[in-house]
């Protein structure tokens, strides 16, 4: 953990990155690939986030949804002024980027274990680099399961990549609201757990999505015998500085920009049950 006041000066200075590529993922959601204009930021690890600055509008925290050398990929949903500006960027546009910030998923610590990735909605974004890393290391981990919950079929992210993860991974997808063409599962993502292939006592789980979905998933996994210390969740609170100074993202004793966003369920559970937090 970085001690307060020990943040490098560069952490507060945006570095210019150029939009190399933009793709519409789903209604209101786009993925942008950024490349450094000059020098690159230090290497990100899956689970970490950047502060991405839309010039003249503001900056927001965005998890990395892809890491490819110096290139950073972010998936952004247009929900406010800043995210709308970033969502609307075209190739060639320049943004400011700060980072890397926060904790990663800690995938290497799960070596030899079955992996269970549970994503809700855009929560798949920070988990995608983890899945890619696991797939890139055959034999390093046990069985890889990717469980994806989405509002509608149109909201599913990263098609066709997620289809290509199978058969190396067990990919199960469910939606809340099917359309007439949907032939897959319907329901909550936790309902897919029965069809995932993992040993509950030793599984390493990685969960990201809306907080009620995280709580429901973690509780179900613990009920099945999973170790709360091996259930990693990515939490979200409003972040401004990302350097552990402003306190906006405080969650009890944690500053999520610094001590999170990825924490174990052992750490998260008691905090998420405090209504005032």
């Amino acid at each position: 953990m970085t001690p307060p006041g020990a943040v490098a000066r560069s952490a507060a200075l945006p570095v210019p990155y150029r939009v190399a590529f933009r793709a519409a993922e789903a209604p209101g959601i786009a993925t942008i690939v950024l490349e450094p204009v000059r020098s690159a930021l230090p290497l990100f690890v899956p689970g970490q986030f950047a502060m991405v600055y839309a010039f003249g509008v503001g900056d927001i925290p965005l998890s990395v949804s892809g890491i490819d050398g110096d290139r950073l990929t972010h998936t952004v949903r247009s929900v406010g002024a800043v995210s709308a500006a970033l969502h609307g960027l075209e190739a060639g546009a320049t943004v400011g980027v700060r980072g890397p910030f926060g904790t990663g998923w800690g995938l290497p610590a799960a070596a030899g274990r079955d992996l269970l990735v549970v994503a809700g909605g855009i929560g798949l974004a920070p988990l995608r680099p983890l899945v890619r890393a696991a797939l890139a290391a055959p034999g390093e981990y046990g069985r890889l399961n990717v469980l994806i919950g989405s509002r509608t079929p149109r909201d599913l992210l990263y098609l066709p990549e997620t289809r290509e993860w199978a058969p190396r991974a067990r990919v199960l997808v469910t939606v809340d609201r099917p359309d007439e063409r949907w032939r897959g599962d319907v329901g909550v993502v936790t309902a897919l757990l029965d069809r995932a292939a993992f040993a509950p006592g030793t599984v390493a789980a990685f969960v990201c999505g809306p907080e009620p979905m995280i709580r429901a998933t973690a509780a179900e996994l613990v009920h099945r015998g999973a170790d709360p210390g091996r259930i990693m969740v990515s939490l979200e609170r409003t972040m401004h500085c990302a350097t552990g100074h402003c306190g906006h993202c405080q969650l009890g004793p944690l500053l999520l920009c610094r001590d999170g966003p990825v924490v174990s369920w052992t750490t998260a559970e008691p905090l998420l049950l405090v209504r005032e937090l």
Partner: protein
Amino acid sequence: MTTSQHGFLGALAPAHRDLLAAFAHEVEIPAGARIFEEGGSADRFWIIRSGGAALDVHVPGGPPPVVETLGEGDLLGWSWLFEPYRWHLGAQARGTLLAVEFDAARVRAACGQDPAFGLAVTGAVAAVIARRLKATRTRLLDLYGPPGTGADGGGR
């Protein structure tokens, strides 16, 4: 698929599972077949062995929208345990469905004759209903849709 059994059968003691098996037989339901219809007599229930089933609701003037899907190991049907023993939803096989089918009237009779068995079966069914109620409430929140409820940027 997980190495410890969950769901309806997992909630029953081995002796009760054996007793329940006396009222069961294997069935194969072809893809697309209607398994039961909303409002119909709930005289059977199933544990899915392989394949899947879609639960749907009748709406006038269109195909029945699917509200939930069930898969391997899931209990298909619980209306058989509670009066008036009528299905709340319809169900259709998705792909070829292999299942264990139970005679609901005989199971209910056995529950009445053996209170311990009846309590165990009722508790196991209630646990399934509770899980589905919880899931339904979660979906009512429409978690994956509204801005600011999990999107990167938290509404900014």
